[in-house]
């Protein structure tokens, strides 16, 4: 039982970090119609930007906004310079999978080429811990979870209360209809890439604040769990991604402590397959904000 509670604690932390990435990933899927396999590599690159800032003396918590800004800028650039041109030339969903896989490999190997095959380590103060109901967590882990929860609330308000958020959802649901309503969807698209890129960068830095160290392939390896969370909740659905992250995060950490860390990914994928057998469009597909489980849901 103790082991389970400890695993649950780690799982909740993992879930809150995963939610950042999974929501970013699912926004790209929902609004831009891109299944972005380079998402993990952008996470790594953002974590690296955070690492450089940290190494230059910046407090590790201030590396979060650094990573967010870097992830946003890199995502907007990649979209404008590479993804949109391919889409305009008629690359379909599967064509774009190949393009983004290629991008992931390029980014990952650029990092290897420039920094070498090393482990990067953040300076995090993990000395103080909190024990509660069998969970043992560091204060920085709790702070991460709180940050993530706050960001999810802000995101919810953005998507449901603001004109920009509604325009994003309208564009995701039906881009042609959005255009005939006067929404400049290409600008909305840029905003979505900036927002999802910021979440991607935050996810990358938050992941490393939790695990302390990473290397060139860390983000890409982690992407399996992020995709599992996003698809589990319903591709393109932000609340779905949050719930998916909660399930995948908790299940993978509990199985890591109770069974063995080797089974993390396996457990996540087994859950994913199990859910998709029962609900092929994911848990939240028919009730979420972005797509009403219509003909254009992707997975």
């Amino acid at each position: 039982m103790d082991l389970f509670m400890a695993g649950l604690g780690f799982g909740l932390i993992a879930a809150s970090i995963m939610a950042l990435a999974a929501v970013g990933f699912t926004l790209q899927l929902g609004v831009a119609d891109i299944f972005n396999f380079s998402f993990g590599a952008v996470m790594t690159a953002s974590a690296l930007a955070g690492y450089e800032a940290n190494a230059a003396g910046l407090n590790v918590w201030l590396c979060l906004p650094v990573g967010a800004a870097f992830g946003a800028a890199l995502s907007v650039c990649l979209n404008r310079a590479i993804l949109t041109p391919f889409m305009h030339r008629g690359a379909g969903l599967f064509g774009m999978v190949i393009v983004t896989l290629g991008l992931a490999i390029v980014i990952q190997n650029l990092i290897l080429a420039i920094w070498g095959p090393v482990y990067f380590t953040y300076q995090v103060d993990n000395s103080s811990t909190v024990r509660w109901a069998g969970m043992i967590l560091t204060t920085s882990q709790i702070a991460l979870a709180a940050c993530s929860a706050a960001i999810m609330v802000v995101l919810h308000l953005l998507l449901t209360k603001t004109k920009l958020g509604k325009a994003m959802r309208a564009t995701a649901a039906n881009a042609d209809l959005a255009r005939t309503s006067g929404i400049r969807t290409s600008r909305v698209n840029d905003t979505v890439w900036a927002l999802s890129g910021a979440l991607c960068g935050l996810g990358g830095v938050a992941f490393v604040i939790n695990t302390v160290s990473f290397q060139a392939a860390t983000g890409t390896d982690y992407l399996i769990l992020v995709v599992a969370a996003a698809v589990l909740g319903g591709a393109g659905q932000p609340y779905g991604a949050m719930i998916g992250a909660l399930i995948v995060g908790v299940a993978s950490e509990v199985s890591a402590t109770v069974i063995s860390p080797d089974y993390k990914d396996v457990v996540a994928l087994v859950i994913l397959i199990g859910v998709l057998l029962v609900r092929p469009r994911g848990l939240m597909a028919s009730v979420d904000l972005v797509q009403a489980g219509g003909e254009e849901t992707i997975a």
Partner: protein
Amino acid sequence: MKPCSMHTSLAESERRPAQLLIRDLVAGYRGIPIVNGVTLSVGEREVVSVLGPNGAGKSTLLKALVGLLPVMAGSIELDGVQITNMSPEDLVRMGTGYVPQVRDVFEPLTVRENLDIGGYLLDSRQIKDRAAEVLALFPSLQRAADRRAGTLSGGERKMLAIARVLMLRPKLLILDEPTAGLAPEVSKRFLHEHVRRLISQGVSTLLVEQRVSASLEISDWAYVLVTGEVRREGRPADLLQDREFAQVFLGRRAELPAIRRESNDM
């Protein structure tokens, strides 16, 4: 084409000054024309119908008009301004309001959010006021204001689709089969109550319809589109006198493919 020119031009001279003028329009998909040299106009405060069998190119014509498809040849003028190949985003700003045949609402958004998006070009204070006005026109929508558009019934959904474009007080309403999927009685009432009535508010309407008699009842002028070309045009009363028209559309409506055969003999 069979000329009925004298007859037509007399009636034509009684039409109102053109608000929308489409000349020799060619449009289609991936460079292949579907609409082939269509000329038509909508006068100020007129309801003009475009009738024709399935696959005639009616929806394609409207998509080219609202900027969702490229215009391959020809020109479009709105209030004397060239709008050929303008983007959909800019066309709304010129005063067009387009309701597509399918995918006509934002399904995951609530009724109210759909109206908010309809009023995207207004500021938030105006959106609120205008949404209240528009909802007052559609009482059943008012009751469903917080429901997701995807869960509405067919009739409510079409009302929402029209309410959404009314948010910006368009001067030209472009409706693609607004009664598709509605029961005949409901569609008739819908056309009278919700389409014709808008004319009194100064809105001109280009209406594509499959329900021929119901849409003729509310129209000032009608065009018959067959395989991408205008085969007939005229006042509804005159078209109904036209034997071939009556036979094709009113007598044997269920066998629409027959139109193609007959129209080839013309």
